[in-house]
Structure formats: C-alpha cells, structure tokens
C-alpha cells in the first residue's frame, strides 16, 4: 500500500472542495474500493488523503420539490432503510439488497459506488433507469460552485468519469416518478451474496393499459461502463408486452451488448444471460 503524505478530514463542504483545489488528493469515503485497490497496487494514493466522512453537506436523504436528493455519503444500508427511498424507488432498495454483505453495506457509500465507476456497480443500473443526475461541487475561485449532470453522461470508462480532479460528488437527484411507473432490477452472479455482477439489468418505464412508454433499459457488466441500451429501449417503446414482442426485444438486447470474456464469465454467456433475463423480467412485468 502506498502511504499518503498528508491526511485531512474536513468538517465542511467548503473545506473539502478547497482542499481539492491543488488536485493531488485522494478522496476517501467508505474505503471499500479504495482499500483493496491500493493494496493490490491498482490505485496509487496521492499526496493527500482526504476523509470526507465528517462533511455534513454530503449526508441525508431529502425531498426537495419533486426531487429526492441522496447525499453522496449515504451508505447502502441507509438507502435500504430509508422511508422515502422505499416509497418512491423500490428498485434502488432491490439493488442494494443484492449489494455485497451487511458489513460492506454498512460502510460503502453511494458516492463511492458512483465515483468508482465500475461497469458492475450495482446502484448505477437502477440510478440510470431512474434518470438520476449527479451533483458536483468545486471551488474554482473563492466560492463554492455547484453543477449537475445526467448520470447517463457521467461514465467514460472503467473507473473513469467526467468528474474533474477538483470536484467532489455531493449527491444524486432523482425525480419522483409519476403514476404507473414501474422499475425492476436483476443481478446475476455465481452466488446470491457477496458477488460482483456477471451481468445486471434495470428496466423502467410507464405501464399504462398494457403499453410500455418512457422506457429506460440499462445493463451492467457488459461494457466498459454501465450502459443505457438505446436499441432495446426503442424496440420496447410504445409496445404491448406480448410473447412475440418480449422475444424480439430480448433478441435485440442480446445483439446490442458487446461484453468481454473475463474471470467471471465469457462474452457468450453474458449475451445469453442478457437475453434470458431481459425476457424473464419483461414477462414478469407483463404478468403483473
């Protein structure tokens, strides 16, 4: 493990983004990615290690107008137990329920999952199909600057995002869905707990009189980033979920993804699973 020169634990957002100004800073949240990655040499800890866990502005789950804001430091356990999330985004709870183990969930944060930008990151798929946006903060001059961007444009590659080195992710915002909204998540791994996704799928939309619209489909672990599946979405948009449509859409989904072989599975198997699980999920939607 590389050793940082300085350790800093800011107690306000201003202090935190101020510290980021010089760029040579590694941000520590729950540390569940950072620790194994620095141990294995995959990641080098920079000059300053900044522990952001004492920054109050990064915590909390709040309803703000028609949006819910989830602070970056919110742990997976907190998300699962939160009444607002349970009420409006059961799909996020579902994903958290398949996330790591209790011990990891108690420390792993949502911001960490987003910034780690793993193609298999489990909260990313439901967030994508919920049209979440990422809030960022920085201090280019003397004052705090905040902006946000859609999560669907945030990821660039494995471990790579559009966040600049002097920015901090402060939270995500998700619009409270309207009536008839449906959203589902499925994670496939070798074992039911403590596993990295072989593939994962999120499907959301508005289901009215058997017709699916505003369709969002996202796939995990089949590309360098978690991805929205535009062709699959297009094929589903405005459709009635009968057996023929479902079969056709599942085929399009399989052809749309370009996964790789790795220690967890071959590309062939991943494509098969995208097909079979998409089909299974859509059938469940149709039956419900």
């Amino acid at each position, binding site marked *: 493990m590389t050793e940082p020169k300085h350790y800093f634990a800011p107690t306000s957002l201003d202090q935190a983004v101020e510290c980021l100004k010089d760029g040579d800073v590694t941000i520590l949240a729950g540390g569940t990615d950072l620790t*194994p990655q620095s141990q*294995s040499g995959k990641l080098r800890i920079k000059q300053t290690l900044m522990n952001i866990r004492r920054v109050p502005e990064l915590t909390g789950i709040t309803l703000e107008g028609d949006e819910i804001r989830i602070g970056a430091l919110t742990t997976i356990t907190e998300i699962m137990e939160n009444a607002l999330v349970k009420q409006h985004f059961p799909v996020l709870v579902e994903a958290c329920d398949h996330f790591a*183990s209790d011990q990891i969930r108690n420390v792993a944060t949502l911001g960490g999952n987003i910034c780690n930008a793993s193609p298999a990151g489990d909260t990313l798929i439901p967030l994508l199909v919920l049209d979440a946006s990422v809030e960022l903060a920085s201090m280019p001059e003397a004052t705090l600057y905040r902006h946000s961007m859609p999560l669907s444009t945030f990821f660039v590659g494995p471990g790579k995002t559009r966040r600049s080195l002097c920015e901090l992710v402060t939270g995500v915002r998700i619009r409270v869905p309207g009536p008839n909204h449906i959203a589902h998540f499925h994670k*496939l791994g*070798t*074992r*039911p*707990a*403590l*596993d*990295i996704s*072989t593939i994962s799928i999120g499907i959301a939309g508005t289901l009215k009189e058997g017709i699916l619209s505003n369709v969002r489909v996202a796939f995990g672990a089949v590309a360098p980033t978690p991805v929205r599946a535009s062709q699959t979405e297009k094929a589903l948009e405005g459709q009635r979920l009968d057996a023929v449509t479902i079969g056709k859409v599942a085929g399009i989904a399989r052809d749309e993804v370009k996964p790789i072989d790795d*220690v*967890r*599975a*071959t590309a062939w*198997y991943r494509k*098969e*699973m995208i097909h*079979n*699980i998409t089909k*299974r999920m859509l059938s469940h939607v149709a039956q419900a």
Partner: protein
Amino acid sequence: MSVAEKKPRVIEPDSLIGKRIPKMDAPEKASGRTRYIHDINLSGQLYGRILRSARIHALIKSIDTSAARALPGVHVVITAADIPDQRPIGVARDHFPLKVGRVRSQRDEIAAVAAESEEIAEAALKLIRVVYEDLPVISDPEEAIKPGAALIHPEPHGADGTHLHLKQGTSIAHKGKPDNIAMTFDYVHGDVIQGEAESDVVIEDTFRLHYVTHCCMGVSGMIAEFDASGNLLMYSNTQVPFLHKREFAEYLNMDPARIRIIQPPIGGGFGSKLDIYPFEVICLYLARAAKRPVKMLFTREEEFLASPTRQPVLLTLRSGCKKDGTLTFRQVHTLHDNGAYTSWGATTPFVMMQTFSSLYRVPHCDYHTAAVYTNNPYAGSFRGYGNLQATFAIEQHMDMLAERIGMDSLAFRLKNAQDSGETTGQGMVFKSCGFKDCINTAAQRSDYTRKFKENEVNRSRPGNIRRGIGMASMLHVGGGAKIYPSDGCGTILKMDDFANVTLITGASEIGQGSETVLSQLVCEELGLPISAITVVNNDTAITPWDVGVHASRTTFIAGNSAIGAAKKAKTKILAVAAKKYECAESDLDLRGGFVIKASSGEVVVELSKLLRNLHFQDKAELVMTTFYYEPPSVHQDKGFKGDVSAAYAWGAQVVEVEVDTDTGRVRMTKVTGAHDVGRVLNRLGIEGQIEGGVVMGQGYALTEELLIENGVMKNPNFRDYKLVTAPEIPEMDISFIESMDGEGPQGAKGVGEAPAICVAAATANAICNATGVRMFELPFTPEKVYRALHGQTPKLYWKPWRADQ
C-alpha cells in the same frame, strides 16, 4: 456442630460419551482471544518477505540485490547464492527453497529479505533486480507427457553441452529427469479382461477435476529463532511436528535434537500443513543469517499463490456390470497435473486406488496414475486426499450403469455394497461396516426413490426450475493409515493433588476438536467432569511422538492412546484405594470425582483426597502414566495390498438441487447424510465436522475454482475465488450409524475427511436427475451448467497415456 446421622452419598452413573460438549477452545476463539501465530511477537524480531518469480518458466540470468541490501532497516537479503548448503526439499526432493538458476512456476522463490518492519521488507523486495530468459511454458499435462515435450527438470549438462550423468541416488533437484513424469502408480487385482468379458454393459468416460485450495482463515506463517547455543525454536503451523522436526534438521544439516517446534493455535489446516514449503526453510535461513528471530506471514494473495492446491485430475474410467446388477470390473487411468514440484498431491493415488478397488464389491480392478510436471501450481494434501476425485467418477458411473441395465440406482448400490467381515481385492478388512445402513438411511430420510422418479417425470414440464436428487457413497480410512514405520501416538497423563488431569498428547489440534474428544475419553475413564482436564499438545519438547494430523486418524489413534494412559492411571488408583479400604479392586470404580462402590455407587472417598494421601502420607507417590498406541494395521505390500487401516468409515449422502435452466445456476437445497462413524463421541463436535465438510464439498462442487491460465493464477483473492457464503448453505439432515468398531476408542472411527467426499458426486447425479444432462467436469458454475444444458460442452475424452493400453 451437631452430628447428624449421615446417609451414605451415592453417585449415579453418568457418561460423557455421545453428549453435546462445546469445544474447549470455543470461548477463546469466539471472543477473539486466541493467540494465533499472527499475534505472537518476539522481542528483537525481524520481518521476512519473499521475492517470487515474475515469470512462469525462465532461466535466472542474474539477480542484483545491492540496492535492497543498502536500504536502511534491512538486515539480511538472501538468494540461492548466499546459501551454499541448500538441500533439496519436498516429497520428491525436487526443488530448493531458493531457486537455483531457473524458475518453474509463478510461486517460485528467488530472494528473501529480513528487515525491521514488513514495510521495509516489502520496499526492499522492490529494489531487487532479476534478469530472466523466458522458456516455453508447459501448462497442459497432456502436452507435458508427450515424448519430446520440453522438460521442466532437465538433466544438467556441462558447459560444453555434454550430459553430466549424475550418480544414482542424487535428488531430482540436482540430477533432473529425462522426462516430465514425476510419479507413477500401478495397481491391479483380478483380471479386468475377464471382468469385461463377463459384463453385459460396459461404459467409459473421462472426468476432469479442477484446482481448488484450502482457504484457511489464518494465513500461513512461521517464527524462527536460534538461541545462543545454536538451538532452533520454531513457532509453526505444521500438522506433523515430529516428522517435520526431522525433515527440517535434514534441510539445515543439523541435529534434530536441537530443534523444538511449538504450534500456536492453527487457523485452519485441512491438510495444507502436511508438507514443508520453501517459505518455512527460507524463514530459517533468514533467522540463521540475521541472528535474530524472524517472523514470516503470508499475505492473502500469497496464501493463494504459494499454498498447495487440491490435486487436479484428468481421469478415464471404464466400468461394467451384469444385467442382474453385479459390478464386474473397473479400469482407471488418471493423469495428475503435478505442477512444477512434487508435494503430497502426487501421492493421492494411495487413497484413490482404495476407492476404485473397494468402494462396493469390485472383482476386477486395474488402476494407473501418472503425475506429470508442468509449470502450474503444485498440489498438496487436502481433506479427502484424492477421494473426492475418485468418488466423483465412480458414483456417476454407478448411476449410469444402473440406468443402462434398467435397475433402480438405490437397489444397484445396495446389491454391490459390502457387509462387515468382508475383505476387498486390495486386502482391506471391513471389521465394522455400516455401509448398507448408511445408504438405506440416507435414501429413506430424503425420500430418494420417490423424488428421483418424480423429478424425471417433471423434466418435461414448463418453467425454468428443475428439481433433482442424487446420491453418492464413500469409503475412507477411519482408523489411521499405516504409511510410516509407526502410525502411533503417545500420551503422558498426570494427576495433581486436586484430581485435576493434565493430558499431554502428541496429537495436534487443528481446529477439528481433538482436544475436547480426547478430554472426554480420559474423563470418561477416570469418572471426572470435563472441567477437570487441561490439554498440552503443542510443543515437541514436551509432548510424546505422534505421526501427525492426517488420514482422519486423531480421534481413533490419539483417542486409544489417551484411553490407554487413563486406564493405567485408573488401575493404579483403584489398587491404592482397594488396599486402603480393604476390598477388591473390582468392587470399586471412579465416578463424579470419587472412588465409589461399583455395585451401589456409594462414595468411598473423594478422589482428590485419596491422591493427596498417596502423595503426602502413604508412599510419596504421584499418579503419572504414559501410553503409546500402535494400531493393529499393516503396511501395504509392493502391490499396494494390505489392511492399511485399523477401521474404515462409510457414508452416503443425498443432495437435492434446483437448476435454473435460464441461467445454469444450481441451488443446493438439501443434503441428507448418513455416516458410519463407529460411535458418536461428542455430538456437537461431530455435527460441526460433518456440516463443515459438506460445505467444503459444496464449494468444490459448485463455486470454487482456482483459474490457472498458462501457469498464471487469475483469481488469487476472495472476490474472484468464490467460497460458499452463509445464505447458500443447504438444509442438512445428518444421521449417525453407530457400528461400534471393536478397535475404536469407545467404538468410534475417524470422520474428519468423510463429509466432504460425496458432495460433488451426488450433486452431479442430482443435476442429471433434474435435467437429463450429465456433467463430467467440475465445478458446476452457472456458465458450465448452462453450456452443458445447451449442448455446448464437447464430450471429454482422454486417451490413457500409456502406449501399451
């Protein structure tokens, strides 16, 4: 004080045998107080680290350690060049602790550092420069065995290219090998040609068994210290302290009498600590050179990379039977991937051939193994010792043969299962044998026959979940195994003035619960509560000799030894009491901490009082006894025949699964096991042993696999090496068949390895019952199963390696 009329006190009979007794070390372990080797630190201690090869197969052209030596805080840096007296180590003495001139696998040790902190040692390793010249990597044993294959241990040639022809008796590490064959085993009984001629059905299949590793929670480690007189003290996790003491002495060229091994509590063994590994000898070199204690601990990644694995095997089995269900013959060829060096994995045929020759009645059996060198990791001993691999093949063939002759698979097994009193073709004598009881019990309790038929019918139903049920049985040594000149164990027992017992046993505790069982056996003899005993079992300077923890032998061998010592103590105590109270010894007994009248249970005298009398008033004598137990087993002859164990353990397990045909995921829902354990001694302990073994077998069957590609381990971490986790553990229904072995301690037989053996085989049968698809290759990961269900798995076929077959 008023003198009330005293009714004589009566102690009711009671027994510790079969009770649920918590393991004696449980409170310490559960509360995090146990001091493992990781927690032990000696003053002045340095930290050792090893530089491993950056290549898989290469010549070492040069090593530059100057920058590492110059790093402040570094005390010693060594390479092979610094240890001119290196001796070859390992089961075949085919490698040096620090590699000389050539690396042959990813784990290979090139240099080592002892420094004031782990961080400094680690930093020093990074400063060592090694220049390699790559050699072709041989990672496929089928390639390695071909004539003309590149050699892993080539014979040395002089500078002018001439063959040096080192003299006979020199080790492989020095003189090399003209081919890649590390070991061969050939066994035969009967005549398979005749057996085949008598068969109505003959089937032949190839099976592939994969790499898995022990995954001990406590990573490997050692602390070594030489005192001012040159005596060596080792804190070691070994499972075989007495044999290793000798072996270390050989490697260090020193007198074994000057070596003392202390074994701190071990965080998991399972066979992994049965051999001496390079890191241990290197740690000794470092301590010798530094003249300071040196502690060396593996990282988790190192534990994966540099620990032994279970023996991977490619196996072709041909077997036959008659229409009436009588087995006729088994013919077996196996190819063992030996890895770069030879450890115990290469010798698993000792156990495998027992299973092939003697699990069920087999009139004709022909068995061959070749273990071949490759550039892969090397396999060691691992709970079951080849038996999981052998059983995987045999028990699938049992189902397949039954199906071919249209016989119920349960009836087929029962028809060929042995009874007590039988002697097998290999000369194993089944004194106690609950084999049929095991099969019947497991089948009945799981409703095997009904479910088996129902599942077959349900295969054609719609839906993606298929249920399956499968059975497998096993035979394993249960009364030691006579491999070494002695398979015995010694005990020293001493009693103090308060009737407390110290049991000093040669048997090592590796988490299996031996301390508790041995204490029970002793207390049972002496009529004492379990709280009256202290066990000393971890210091070669104190404990009497034992051959080591392996072969499921400790309860049986050390148990009989402990009982022997306790009986001697009891005889002495009763003799003293009989004299003092003027009665016959046979009128007395020990119970509840008292000497009592055997007939009525009436108290004669408190035991502690009697012992104090003996010590301080009568004769100035103490009660201290010793006993050495040698089981009545025999060594095998040159053809591997003989009654090698004093008793044999049996078991049958039924596994139930749900297969998701959309994903290939197999969920193990229930395991029903019936084990002939002779007798249950500690019910809590034996339940834990079985449950743990089943889970280990489950991991072998479903999730665990060390992925090796061209000699490179792809998943040396717990993220990608998938152990079974709690939610996956199936419901278990375990029955014990108590066959009361005549030689066993209180009738018990060994059971340490047994529970892991059947699971993979029974799972294969269950998947086939669920889906109609047979799988010949482990592990049954979702992708493998999915491929098989979709006809995407080419049929395995390995043609035996021998030209003459």
